């Protein structure tokens, strides 16, 4: 309130310009949180359902607008005397007509009849009423169906209005006309001043609006409007399209109105209204369907949902076991990265997106392959995150590659053996992206919310062990988000591999897989293979150095690993285009789970740089034009990269 509207004795100060306004913190809610500032261009609104404010626009009367057949009087009480609540219990009264002043025509009062209007239309007129006298006509059926003609109705309303004005702001004029024989109400006229819904302090009058009154019809599963919300609107927990529970029907409407939601086929209706008719109605939703709708997990409906029992304390992993498990899981991530990459190189997809006019098969193959590649990149991130958690736990990095995926623990591994658990136990293998391989990828990424089931379950076991044993894991708050991310992204991988399978299902394997050379590699190809391996080993080493140096490298080392990865990717595609796939061979001495010292890191970098440069030089000497060109550009890039790596390592100290 500006200061010039000063109230007696109140010393006020009012920030006038923008800097003054920005310099204050004002107590209380901002003006845009006032009820009348609520969203009104959609219903029920965002902050509150504005219809609920106008329920009590006249004292002693509560109206209901959430209906198609108009507004009804749902409750009545003091100070109204002409109608009793018993009377309206079985025979509701409808708002037929109203006489008052509104925002658009504020000089003279106007008359509004509500024949064949829905509740929202009636509400809109009431919402626009100005403060002051209002007269209403109520009757026992929808619309205006009284024995009165409209002229007499207007005369009555005017008379009630004018008498009320004469009587003052508190005056209430009431007239109830009943049938003589039955005493049933024929019509009622009431004139009052429109009630204020805010009290003197500008807050909602608590006696008019009990808690929850204004929000009771907001969009929530237990109210009717849940039906209207579509995905990405605010009911983010309501899906639009789901798979049926038995998995037989894909892409069905979550709100479909069929008695057997599992078996009945969905009708194909494209028009909006037609589709709406096949969905559960507002009434269905309010009357219990909100409770019957199935839970949806991973896009599939499920009528049964059980939370796995929390493992007892003895089932949790100890700190050492968590470290051992993560040390192993990092090597699994590594193995999966390589398997996925190999599958990527095995298809006919080009490295870069196909031209816009490419045929559909080319585009499909590229899209599917690219999806696998993106999952591989995600796994690289998981590999990194697993190592970051190890770092947080003070354990050395783990960059080796697992020889078996889902391997049961050996006694020397330090991992905990769980006898109730199913171990996948599949040897690492490089396979083209055949259907069998696709199934394997789907299987290995299958989600599991249950601890100790599948790979995903191993992370769940770690999550629970860390979560429920804060004393053992003071770093809990830093670890939990990372593990959760790995689990959540794993769910996405399952879906993405499933969609890869779907999109390739119309092609035969020979349509999308490269024909691999059966001859032994040529000398140039040998050089390329060596180069790919050198890059591969280089990436492992850089990552191990990164986690030995830790954050002190400022992320530069990881960036270097990514750039090396790009070089490897380029060389692998060149090789694959000749029908030979990179072999990802292990170095003579695979990395062990230890911290590298600075000196060791430096000598390792020097040696690796020399190996890569050797491979590049021989490739430049004997390779094709493409190979020469690539070797040339990678030579300069690698030299600069390794110089930078050595500088970083040199400037770090030797602390693990």
């Amino acid at each position, binding site marked *: *309130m*500006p*200061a*010039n509207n*000063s109230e007696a*004795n*109140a*010393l*006020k*100060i*009012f*920030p*006038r*310009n*923008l*800097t*003054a306004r*920005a*310099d*204050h*913190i*004002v*107590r*209380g809610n901002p003006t845009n949180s006032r009820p009348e500032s609520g969203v009104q261009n959609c219903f029920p609104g965002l902050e509150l359902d504005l219809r609920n404010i106008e329920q009590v626009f006249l004292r002693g009367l509560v109206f209901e607008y959430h209906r198609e057949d108009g507004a009804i009087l749902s409750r009545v009480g003091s100070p109204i005397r002409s109608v009793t609540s018993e009377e309206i219990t079985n025979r509701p009264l409808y708002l037929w007509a109203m006489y008052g002043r509104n925002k658009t025509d504020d000089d003279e009062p106007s008359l509004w009849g509500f024949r064949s209007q829905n509740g929202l239309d009636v509400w809109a007129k009431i919402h626009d009423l100005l403060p002051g006298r209002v007269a209403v006509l109520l009757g026992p059926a929808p619309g205006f169906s009284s024995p009165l003609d409209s002229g007499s109705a207007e005369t009555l309303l005017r008379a009630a209005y004018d008498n009320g004005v004469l009587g003052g702001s508190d005056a209430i004029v009431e007239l109830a006309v009943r049938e003589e024989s039955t005493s049933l109400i024929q019509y009622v006229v009431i004139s009052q001043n429109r009630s204020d819904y805010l009290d003197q302090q500008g807050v909602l009058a608590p006696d008019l609006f009990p808690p929850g009154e204004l929000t009771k019809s907001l969009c929530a599963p237990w109210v009717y409007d849940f039906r209207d919300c579509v995905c990405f609107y605010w009911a983010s927990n309501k899906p639009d399209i789901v798979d049926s529970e038995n998995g037989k029907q894909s892409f069905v409407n979550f709100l479909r109105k069929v008695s057997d939601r599992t078996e009945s086929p969905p009708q194909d209706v494209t028009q909006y209204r037609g589709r709406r008719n096949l969905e559960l109605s507002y009434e269905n939703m309010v009357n219990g369907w909100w409770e019957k709708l199935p839970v949806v997990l991973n896009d599939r409906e499920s009528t049964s949902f059980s939370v796995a029992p929390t493992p007892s304390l003895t089932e949790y992993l100890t700190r050492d076991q968590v470290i051992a498990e993560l040390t192993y899981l990092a090597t699994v991530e590594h193995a999966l990265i390589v398997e996925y990459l190999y599958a990527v190189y095995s298809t006919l997809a080009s490295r870069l997106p196909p031209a816009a006019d490419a045929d559909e098969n080319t585009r499909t193959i590229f899209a599917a392959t690219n999806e696998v590649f993106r999952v591989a990149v995600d796994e690289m991130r998981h590999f990194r995150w697993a190592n970051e958690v190890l770092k947080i736990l003070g354990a050395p990095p783990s960059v080796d590659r697992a020889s078996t995926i889902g391997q049961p623990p050996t006694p020397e591994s330090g991992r905990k053996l769980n006898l109730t658990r199913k171990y996948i136990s599949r040897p690492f293998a490089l396979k083209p992206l055949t259907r069998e391989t696709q199934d394997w990828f789907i299987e290995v990424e299958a989600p599991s919310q249950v601890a100790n089931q599948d790979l995903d379950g191993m992370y769940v076991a770690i999550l629970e062990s860390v979560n429920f044993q804060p004393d053992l894991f003071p770093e809990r708050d830093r670890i939990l988000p990372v593990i959760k991310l790995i689990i959540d992204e794993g769910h996405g991988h399952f879906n993405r591999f499933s969609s890869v399978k779907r999109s390739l299902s119309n092609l035969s394997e020979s349509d999308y897989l490269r024909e691999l050379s059966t001859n032994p590699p040529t000398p140039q190809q040998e050089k390329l293979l060596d180069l790919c391996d050198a890059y591969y080993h280089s990436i492992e080493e850089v990552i191990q150095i990164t986690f030995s140096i830790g954050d002190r490298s400022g992320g530069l080392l990881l960036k270097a690993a990514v750039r090396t990865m790009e070089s490897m990717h380029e060389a692998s595609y060149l090789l694959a285009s000749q029908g030979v796939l990179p072999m990802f061979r292990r170095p003579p001495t695979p990395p062990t789970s230890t911290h590298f010292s600075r000196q060791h890191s430096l000598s390792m970098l020097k040696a690796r740089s020399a190996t890569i440069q050797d491979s590049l030089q021989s490739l430049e000497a004997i390779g094709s034009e493409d190979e020469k060109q690539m070797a040339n550009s990678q030579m300069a890039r690698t030299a600069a990269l390794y110089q930078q790596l050595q500088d970083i390592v040199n400037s770090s100290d030797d602390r693990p």
Partner: protein
Amino acid sequence: MSLQLVQLTLPSPHEHASPIGTENQSFNAEYRIIETPVGPHIFIADQSRLYAIDNALSHSESELHRALGELIVLNEERAIGLAPIAVPPLHSLSLNVAQACNMACSYCYADEGRFGGKARLMSEEIAFRSIDRLLSEAAEGEPVVVGFMGGEPMLHRELVHAATRYAASHCGEREVRFSLTTNGTLLNACDVQLFHEFPFTVQISIDGDRESNDLARPMLGGGSSYDRIIESLKLFSIHGRPKQLSARVTVTPLTRDLPSVLRHVMSLGFDDVGFAPVVVSPNLSTSFSSRDFESFLADMIACGRIALDELKNGRPFPFTNFLTAIDEIHKGTHRPYPCGAGAAYLSVNAEGEVYACHRLIDDPAFAMGNVRTGLDQESRSKLLARMHVDRMEPCRGCWARYLCGGGCYHEVTRRGRLGCDYIRGWIEFCISAYAELSSSNQYTHFS
């Protein structure tokens, strides 16, 4: 509504006779109580904050001091510290394409464009190098402004055209805008088309109706400069208007009846009209003395009241001096410098030497490098250190200093600060007008 003021609380003004930073500074320099038709207001220098206050508050000394203690901060939390700003990237560069003029205005600070030297024209090479310099010194991706000044820039029309096209074709993705200050007597259809084609702000100097304009602004070879301007304005209606077409009225102590001048020039069809008093001129009779400023202030306020009435009634009235002030007060503009000279704005002479602004061309004290060899960052930095308003007397004791900035370098170095009372009076009037406007229902610009 109650307001919680969250400035740190200080001892009452009586208790501290002191310091901003480490030096003595008057508490009075931190605020000003301004009576307005919509009640009293407090203007706080720091952040140029403006508060409406109760009459009761303004009359209670103890309450007022308590409020001031909460509003005024005298330490490092102030928005403007004593440290000069770092030299910012260049935003705007004006090219003095013709240091010569076809007119003989009695008050010309630039000595008919020669700035005391010989008449000369800028070469194309210098103009292009200047633009290259602007583009390379500007912040990545930020828009830049190329200005054309003189003398009369249209004496070197070919260069204005060439430089405009050069800048537009060399700016890449960056937005480039243009400004041109001209006497408006030499414009032809091609020029007007150029100003329409590229985003130009064209500012034409005109001093009133035909009689008063021609008296103050005679052509060198005789003839009416007013008539020529009117002819030029017709060209704009035929060939298209620039983005902004402004009139600049130069006011001397001899100028009479500013409201009439304002209304007349506005009637000619400019987008906006502004006044500038002559402070520095070779001719003493045409430059303002301290006393002249008193009547100038009264005239300006008369013009301001006209603008205020029009705006309050929902009608536009583009009187630049007034609108700019109102806008800055609304935003709470606060700066320790009067303008961007030497900072984000520089000016190049015909030979490619760079100066702090177009008025300071050829002044060695404001030399800032050369477009060929580079800008002199040290000189720019020293200028900003030297001209910080909190380091200057009497500025640092003035409540209006962060809106004024300490006065035009050109005027201050040549004549001192003659117009301080005028500036304070004008700002006070504008603050009052702002208070009225912002509480008026008709004027919705601030809502």
